[in-house]
């Protein structure tokens, strides 16, 4: 395999895997599961080759594929490349896919083949969106995420799944259709400047920098195009006040769907802010920083407060995501090297911790068919291993030193403090609230007096479940103990990105 094809294999591999799955007859569900697991492990192995071949000293895009014309009349081509930032997010994605398949081993019992095909198509779309170096290609991958996720929520979800699936679809589309107009305008502007049609990231970057700023929002092409992109990403993150689809989608999605939604899909929003809004429109970005900072801080505090009062564990974790992603946006908006590195690391951290939390809540739900905190209490004695795992993940989520969450949050706050001390102080309160709602939930579920007889026969985690959560825990500890492994590959990329 030639090295320049590696990114193509990583991106289109899962889609090819989905096609292979169609060949397996519908009755053979065990074989479908094993085949899907095998495909996802091969995919992970391929993505580790990215890590091996990646040169951390290079700032720009590496391992680029050849530029293959797709719609040459408009200068649209198939072109992929990776830098330190997308490297970490792609690895996070490929790590989570086998975890999702293991987590869905028993909980997905209907239309097994279709579930795994949707999951693999979704993987291709997510990785493609991280790696695309052509903005049109990015848009296609971005929209391609919609259909599989719509099915995952709507077919295998909870009682209100159709409502949640349609809400997810429409909300996401609200943002992306306006982004399409923004992309078209940018391409037109680029053509007007250079008289060559192109949708290449590098050409639109040049055009984005040259977009005039104007005097007010509505007379400023750069601000308007910025806003068109920002809306799409803000809904995906989700930033306050665009977050209302998230609790519904998470609550109704199956466990595997929630893991992938929280773990990767939301990161595409923050990634989009960094890769497109920050880099393409620096002048507009600086004009918008106060607004982004404000919304980020509101998100951190509001998400935490709402999480505090949730009776449903999954909904609680969903609102905690709003808070955690507020931290990521804070780090991006502050724009120092430390805060941006922290934000990128925190994207990975959130994927690991929240993914693990959804997985563990799913384990409990599979046994008791309830996620209400009030239905548990004192179960630490019955399920000690489970309790230990849950506690570890909780501590990672609230940022205990020595685990991953601490590193990310510390870098974000330290980096933000230099420029925006008030925002940093307010956000630090979010850390305290985060500890409160998570530990209070743990107390009510695991420690309080034993309240429900149904929980006596609760089974502890089995080998499959331990295997599913183990990779996440390994990285939770690894990032906490030795973050340099993960910070150094992205440093050059972050530095060059902040030069814009």
């Amino acid at each position, binding site marked *: 395999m030639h090295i320049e094809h590696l990114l193509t294999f990583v991106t289109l591999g899962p889609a090819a895997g989905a096609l292979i799955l169609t060949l397996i007859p519908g009755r053979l569900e065990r074989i479908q599961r094993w085949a899907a697991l095998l495909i996802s492990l091969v995919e992970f192995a391929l993505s580790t080759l990215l890590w091996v071949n990646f040169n951390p000293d290079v700032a720009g895009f590496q391992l680029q594929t050849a530029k293959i014309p797709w719609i040459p*009349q408009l200068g649209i081509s198939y072109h992929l490349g990776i830098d330190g930032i997308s490297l970490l997010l792609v690895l996070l994605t490929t790590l989570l896919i086998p975890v999702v398949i293991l987590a869905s081993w028993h909980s997905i019992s209907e239309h097994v083949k279709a579930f795994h095909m949707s999951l693999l198509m979704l993987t291709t779309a997510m990785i493609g969106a991280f790696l695309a170096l052509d903005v049109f290609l990015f848009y296609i991958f971005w929209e391609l995420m919609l*259909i599989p996720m*719509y099915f995952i929520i709507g077919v295998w979800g909870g009682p209100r799944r*159709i409502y949640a699936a349609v809400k997810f679809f*429409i909300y996401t589309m609200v943002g992306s*259709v306006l982004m*399409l107009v923004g992309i078209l*305008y940018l391409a037109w502007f680029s053509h007007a400047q250079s008289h060559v049609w192109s949708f290449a990231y590098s050409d639109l970057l040049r055009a984005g920098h040259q977009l005039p700023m104007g005097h007010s929002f509505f007379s400023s092409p750069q601000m308007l195009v910025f806003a068109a992109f920002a809306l799409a990403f803000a809904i995906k993150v989700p930033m306050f006040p665009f977050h209302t689809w998230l609790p519904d989608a998470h609550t109704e999605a199956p466990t595997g769907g929630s893991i992938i939604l929280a773990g990767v899909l939301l990161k595409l929003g923050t990634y989009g802010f960094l890769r497109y809004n920050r880099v393409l429109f620096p002048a507009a970005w600086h004009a918008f920083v106060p607004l982004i900072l404000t919304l980020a801080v509101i998100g951190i505090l509001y998400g935490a407060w709402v999480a505090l009062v949730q009776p449903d564990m999954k909904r609680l974790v969903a609102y905690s995501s709003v808070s955690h992603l507020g931290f990521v946006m804070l780090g991006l908006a502050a724009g120092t090297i430390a805060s941006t590195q922290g934000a990128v690391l925190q994207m990975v951290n959130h994927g690991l911790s929240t993914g693990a939390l959804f997985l563990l809540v799913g384990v409990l739900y599979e046994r008791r068919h309830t996620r209400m905190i009030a239905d548990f209490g004192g179960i630490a004695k019955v399920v000690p291993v489970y309790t230990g795992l849950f506690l570890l993940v909780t501590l990672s989520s609230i940022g205990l030193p020595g685990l991953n969450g601490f590193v990310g949050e510390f870098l974000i706050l330290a980096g933000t403090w230099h420029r925006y001390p008030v925002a940093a102080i307010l956000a630090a309160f979010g850390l305290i609230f985060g500890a409160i709602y998570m530990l209070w939930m743990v107390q009510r579920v695991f420690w309080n007096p034993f309240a429900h007889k149904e929980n006596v026969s609760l089974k502890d985690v089995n080998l499959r479940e331990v295997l599913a959560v183990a990779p996440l825990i390994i990285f939770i500890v690894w990032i906490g103990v030795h973050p340099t492994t993960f910070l150094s590959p992205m440093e050059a990329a972050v530095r060059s990105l902040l030069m814009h």
Partner: protein
Amino acid sequence: MPTQSDLLAVAPELVLIAGAGVLLILDAFLPKLRRIASELTLLTAVGAAWALLALPHQGLVWSGMMRADTLFVLVSLCLLVALFLCAWMAGPYLHRAGKETGEFYALLIFATAGAMIMAGSIDLLPLFLGLELLSIALYVLNAFFKDIDVSLEAGLKYFIVGAFAAAFTAYGIALLYGATATTNIEAMGRILAAGATVTPILIVGFAMVAGGMAFKLALFPFHGWAPDVYQGSPTPVTAFLSVVPKAAALIVLLRFATSFDLLHMGHSWIWAAGIVAVGSQTLGNIVAIVQRDIKRMLAYSGIAHMGYAMIGVIVAGTAGSTAVLIYIAAYTVMNIGAFSVIALMSENEAEPHLISDLAGQGWSRPLTSLALAICMFSLAGVPPFAGFAAKFFVFRSAVDQGLIWLAVLGVINSLISAFYYLRVVYTLYMRPLPRRVPDFLSSRAIGAVAGVSAALVVLIGLYPTWLLSAAHAAARFLVR
């Protein structure tokens, strides 16, 4: 006396009319051969396509009244694909209803020939003849199930509205002739370009012809007939009616828009056509949301789609014309694909085609349901399907001409449309099968139509380059 090149230019139409004639004779004298009427129609369509592609075509023919060029070839190809797919699905459909007759197919073929004449004419007289051939054949087809009230109602409605539209068009042609002393659209364009004053008679004449076309396109505010006619006509006829007359009428409007250079004639055209376009999109999409019958829903969806296509007509020029041609091709395959699955749903038009009847079919009839789902996502404009490519090029042409408001209103409208297209998809896959499963037809032929259409939808969506090249080459014949 027609020359050889005149005859060569209309060879595809001649093949069609010969095929239709054979079908009518068979019907009268060899009724046993009615069984193969559908196959004969497919053969006729393929023969016409061969005549279209293999025989040489050069420029102006019939004393400058028609133009046989790349544009004509591309549009005719879309029309023949539509004829082919509709005739293919009509076989099992008519067989179930016990209405197999040769005349049904003969009428379909005549209508296609009429649409091709319309698309090839640059003179308003043959254009009007084509329009009438198309319309009269369709009036009969709408009411083909003459013992069913809704079918009769559909035929009558389409006839009355169509007669009005034809009268409008004829009167408009007369006024245009009065104003310019010619019936040739390109000659009128040359007269205007030479600096002739734009008289009120010219404006009224053009408005009346455009209004006649808007009737055929079911554009707001001329859309009133569409839901009842769509619902009441036999489903293969609905599929045909939803694309063929619309493709021909769009080409006529494009010819006017490019020859008259309407975009640069002042703001009143942009405003008037813009209101019609955005009004069609908004009305179509909002009213479609509350429809429970899928054929009525697609009627409103069709109103909205012609609204998007109108954006391309407003922009005109090479980019706008290219976009409209791509839209015609994409819309043809995705709409016929959707209707082919609907043709399986009920025995005849006396029964409603409720969206809720599709519940759970996604898992019990996976292939046809997948085709329907693909067509729905495509109609909603989600990549990587043909509908996205079509909208992308239309909106791109608008942004390039600085008509960003048209693009923004267009994308907001496609967002609204996602509501009702998604309803079909979630009914298919996310609702349980009802206890009494509706008795849907199983037909390999109709399944094949759905499959071919869905495959074309994916092909155009993933790799629009070849279509773009063809449409671009065709559009250059419009704009000189």
